[in-house]
């Protein structure tokens, strides 16, 4: 039910990776899902009760038909009690079955929805707790797939597994008892066919499962190619790659066709096989029954009719259980990934309770070593001190570790060795959240949230007045741009800000940070996508912004950092030069070379 195109990125792309093979892990996942179900004990009780009601009364129907046939129709005298009996039982059975079925469906859907909601909530809580490291390591598509597809799989499985399982058990037991009660000889006939039935059903189920899995994998391939193709359409056209792309696609497409054909053929075997079993049972029961009645007078016609009905009730649940097994596998695969996400270590574990109170903004890196991977050191012995209110610029080629310094300051990542101090106190003694509230970061690539432009500027300070917002926007040189928008400050931001240019997003982000008024300001290539004329204007605002505020500026265009109090030049993770512009130019080192490359030709 819960399907259809969503905005969750390519579907099914990651549907079948990381499937646990070990039995004890599978058990663990099932237990975990059960722990969510357990929160609704009364619902589960009523569901069981409703199913019992439904199953028992549907089992009683053949009995009634048998009694009517044997005792009232198949005798000579007319008996009006029978009419009352028939009408009465039809009413009772109908009411009981309706109640049972309705409650079972509604309660189960409710419980499954609530469990899915709870799991989703826990996953969402976890999203807030996950360290940035997790987001850097796992692709956006993968995380989204866990949050949408996998939770949906659990929901679909739960909604079907629980009621089908309970009713299958009740029906199998009930049908056997009913058959034994009706005629043990004919029951024997039914039971004899059971092993063949089981074998066929299990065979088909396992084959179909295998092929469905294959189909999912192929679908993922096809989706990947389509995505890559659309993203790179420009290059495809410019380099006349259309034919090569179609060829690449055709290969995967044919594989998908094959996989989905196989999956369809095997899963399509189930229904006819069940029907075959039904029919064979039917004719066996009737033939044997006929012999028993005619030769030995051991059974009645009503009994034969009843057994044929019970036999049908007996075969269906067996095939249902086989399908439950498939659903369960899918749920385990989905659950495994969801719970892995939920169980990721929160970055707030072992976090200090101590709040970082007002700071003057003196920052010190003391012999800091750091690497994203255990044996790949990105920063080596970083050592510097910024006085409060000063502006420090970090320059260096791409990949030299500039942004890493910011990641460490905001504690997105934690250092291996050394210490980082604010106002002489180690930042590791304080809570991460209180630290981050003191630091305002404007990133190179800015994400805007759904909502209005106003909401986005107010993001860091929800109680800001409109006047404050406008002031911040003016400082960021974005007020005029916003005023030109169709609904000005109330213009909606779509999907992360795709209706704004890169530069506009950066400007809005600067306004957002200005409004939140942080003690320490970080501008990480904050104006890289803004044209130089606008940048020149922002420079003035930034000049105001960094005044009396400790500021870190990372910039490619060296012009923008010339006035910094202190410039750090980083090369391969080490500080190779430090000082102000004047000093560094005189030194004739790396900085001077970089500067001359950008400006030298002008003189």
């Amino acid at each position, binding site marked *: 039910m819960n399907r259809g195109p969503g905005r969750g990125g390519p579907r099914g792309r990651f549907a079948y990776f990381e499937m646990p093979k070990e039995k004890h892990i599978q058990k663990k996942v099932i237990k975990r899902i059960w722990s969510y179900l357990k929160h609704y004990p009364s619902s589960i009780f009523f569901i069981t009760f409703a199913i019992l009601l439904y199953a028992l009364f549907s089992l009683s129907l053949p009995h009634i038909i048998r009694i009517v046939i044997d005792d009232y129709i198949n005798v000579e005298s007319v008996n009006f009690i029978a009419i009352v009996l028939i009408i009465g039982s039809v009413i009772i059975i109908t009411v009981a079955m309706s109640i049972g079925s309705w409650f079972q469906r509604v309660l189960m859907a409710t419980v499954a929805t609530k469990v899915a909601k709870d799991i989703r909530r826990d996953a969402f809580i976890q999203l807030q707790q996950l360290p940035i490291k997790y987001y850097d390591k796992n692709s956006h598509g993968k995380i989204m797939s866990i949050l949408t597809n996998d939770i949906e799989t659990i929901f679909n499985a739960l909604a079907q597994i629980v009621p089908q399982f309970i009713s299958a058990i009740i029906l199998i037991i009930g049908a056997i008892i009913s058959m034994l009660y009706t005629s043990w000889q004919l029951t024997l006939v039914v039971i004899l066919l059971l092993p063949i039935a089981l074998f066929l059903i299990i065979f088909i189920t396992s084959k179909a499962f295998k092929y469905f899995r294959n189909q999912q994998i192929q679908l993922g391939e096809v989706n990947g190619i389509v995505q890559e193709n*659309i993203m790179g359409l420009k290059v495809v056209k410019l*380099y006349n790659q259309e034919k090569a792309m179609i060829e690449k696609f055709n290969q995967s497409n044919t594989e998908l066709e094959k996989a989905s054909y196989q999956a369809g053929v095997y899963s399509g075997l189930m229904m006819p096989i069940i029907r075959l079993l039904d029919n064979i049972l039917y004719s066996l029961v009737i033939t044997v029954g006929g012999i028993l009645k005619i030769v030995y007078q051991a059974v009645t016609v009503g009994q034969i009719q009843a057994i044929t009905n019970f036999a049908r009730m007996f075969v269906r649940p067996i095939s249902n259980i086989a399908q439950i097994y498939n659903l369960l596998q899918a749920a385990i695969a989905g659950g495994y990934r969801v719970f892995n996400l939920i169980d990721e270590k929160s970055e707030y574990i072992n976090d200090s309770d101590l709040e970082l109170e007002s700071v003057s903004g003196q920052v010190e890196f003391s012999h800091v070593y750091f690497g994203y991977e255990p044996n790949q050191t990105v920063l080596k012995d970083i050592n510097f001190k910024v006085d409060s209110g000063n502006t420090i610029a970090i320059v260096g080629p791409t990949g030299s570790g500039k942004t890493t310094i910011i990641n460490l300051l905001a504690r997105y990542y934690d250092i291996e060795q050394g210490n980082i101090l604010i106002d002489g106190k180690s930042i590791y003694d304080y809570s991460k959240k209180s630290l*981050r509230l003191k630091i305002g970061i404007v990133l190179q690539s800015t994400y805007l949230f759904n909502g209005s432009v106003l909401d986005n500027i107010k993001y860091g300070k929800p109680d800001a007045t409109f006047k404050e917002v406008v002031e911040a926007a003016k400082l960021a040189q974005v007020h005029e741009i916003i005023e030109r928008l169709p609904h000005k400050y109330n213009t909606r931001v779509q999907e992360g800000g795709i209706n704004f240019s890169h530069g506009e997003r950066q400007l809005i982000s600067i306004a957002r940070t200005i409004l939140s008024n942080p003690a320490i300001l970080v501008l990480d290539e904050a104006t890289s996508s803004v044209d130089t004329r606008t940048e020149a204007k922002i420079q003035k605002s930034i000049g105001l912004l960094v005044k009396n505020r400790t500021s870190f500026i990372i910039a490619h265009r060296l012009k923008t950092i010339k006035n910094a109090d202190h410039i750090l030049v980083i090369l391969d993770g080490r500080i190779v030069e430090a000082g102000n512009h004047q000093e560094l130019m005189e030194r004739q080192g790396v900085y001077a070379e970089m500067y001359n490359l950008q400006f030298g030709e002008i003189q």
Partner: protein
Amino acid sequence: MKDLFKIYLRVYQKKHIVFSIFAILFLIFDVLIALIIPSITKGIFDEINSEGNRLSYIYRTGAIVVGIALVAVLITVMNNIFTQRVSTRITAELRKDLFSKIQELSFSNVDEITTGTLITIVSNDTAQIQQIIMMSFRAILRSPLTLIGAILMAYLINQQLFVIILLIVPILSLFIIIIIKKASSTFLIMQERIDDLNTKLNETVSGAREIKAFVTEEQEMERFNLVNDNHSNTIIKAYKRIANIDPLIILISNIGIGAVLIFAGYLVSILTGEARTEMVGTIAAYISYLQQIIMSLMMLSMVAVQLSRGAISAQRIQKVLNIRPSIENKAEPIIVDNFKGRIEYRDVSFGYGYGDGHNEAVGLTLKNISFVIEPKSTVGIIGSTGSGKTTLVQLLPRLYDVTSGTIYLDGIDIRDIDLSFLRQQISYVTQEAIIFSGTITDNIRQGKEDANLEEIEQAARFAAADEFIYKTEKEFNNEVTQGGTNLSGGQRQRLSLARALIREPKIIILDDSTSAVDAKSEAKIKDNVYSSKKQTTIIIAQKISSIRNCDKIIVLDNSGRLDGFGTHKELLKESEVYREIYNSQFGGNDE
């Protein structure tokens, strides 16, 4: 529905028709057998219950039922095989048609439909169609056939009891229609809630850095809970509506059975004087037919839901398939002999969306631009963000076509030149480097399919990409992930530059394509590419320092007009926009 029908007609295309006919034939056999079985078993019951008690008859009929059942399985399996063949093949064809179509789409088309939707169309919507085609060889045909057949068989067996069926069928149909109508409106709302939920989740994953930076975790949590609650409440509501069908079916089917028992047992025998014992077989058969009738009505209701979903998918698929490519080859495209690469823009204007007949209100991005670029010269383009620099150069390889005016290459209107020949002469290096999954070699080879290893290495060296490539373990055979995520921005840019250089184009366009490359490598690239004068070079830049030595510089003003065209020195005198940009970069520069 029209679109769905159009796609469905593919079933009767020549290449599928044989499979389709077989699928339908087997389906008809299948229905017939299902209809015959109850009437055969009726015979057995009658026989058991009769005075004659002929065992041989029972044996024979039992054997017949088993035989028929076996045949039925074979038939169903055959039906399934043919059905799967047709449905998976047509779906694969649809996917292929869509993919080929995507290659022809203009960028305004892609922008409008969005990448996400296109992927959903290729994967989900085609899967939906596959379901429909499968159903067309099963439930869609089977239900009405079974319905009519079962009614007919019931009538043949006993006319008096037929009254029951006459009453039940219309009542049940009516109820089912009402419930489905109600439920489907809830499903529409449900879809919206799912979208809301996905949007919120997407936002949280994409904006993780912002959320942490502003410490808005709790605020996000509150907003999410709202969406999450809304979503689950809507789902529960939808399920409640659907659950209403159950009691209805149970009620009507039980009333039917009760009525059959009473009618057959009493009323009929009273009315006609037939012995009640004669009726046992009839009762069993009637109950079977009644169940078949109810089942097919239920199936039809499911078909209705599926069809309405399929219709939406079909509409989306056809919408893409029906897009006419706006940029195509002329009837007899020209391949230019001895191509030199003289570029002339004559009175060129361009507005996004003009060619596709919508968005007329957007306005022109470029207005009346004219200039000439001589072969092997180097030309810079400068202007503020949004002034149309990228748009201007994208017109040359015909990523977009001009709205008015003409672009000439060697004096020939580029719209008359063979499209792939045209693009072969031009290497346009985009702002954001686009890299494909595969090896480094694969990516560079896209520029020249038959390039040998030496040429590849040389191109990499010219693009200053050799250094980082040799640092990787497998060097040129190193695998690049989708979107090139295992490379840094600067590395991606250099790789895409290598791809552009390997074809030794007559014209190369660098659209701010070294923005993430470090200064040293950039200097190298400068020497290798534009100082070498091997081809016409067009450079879009933010920094005046990057273009001041160009032979000519194009200056665009904010409204998409040409503000100046000349050398650095000339422009400092003539172009106000150029002076302003210059001052913003070097003003107050006391060096």
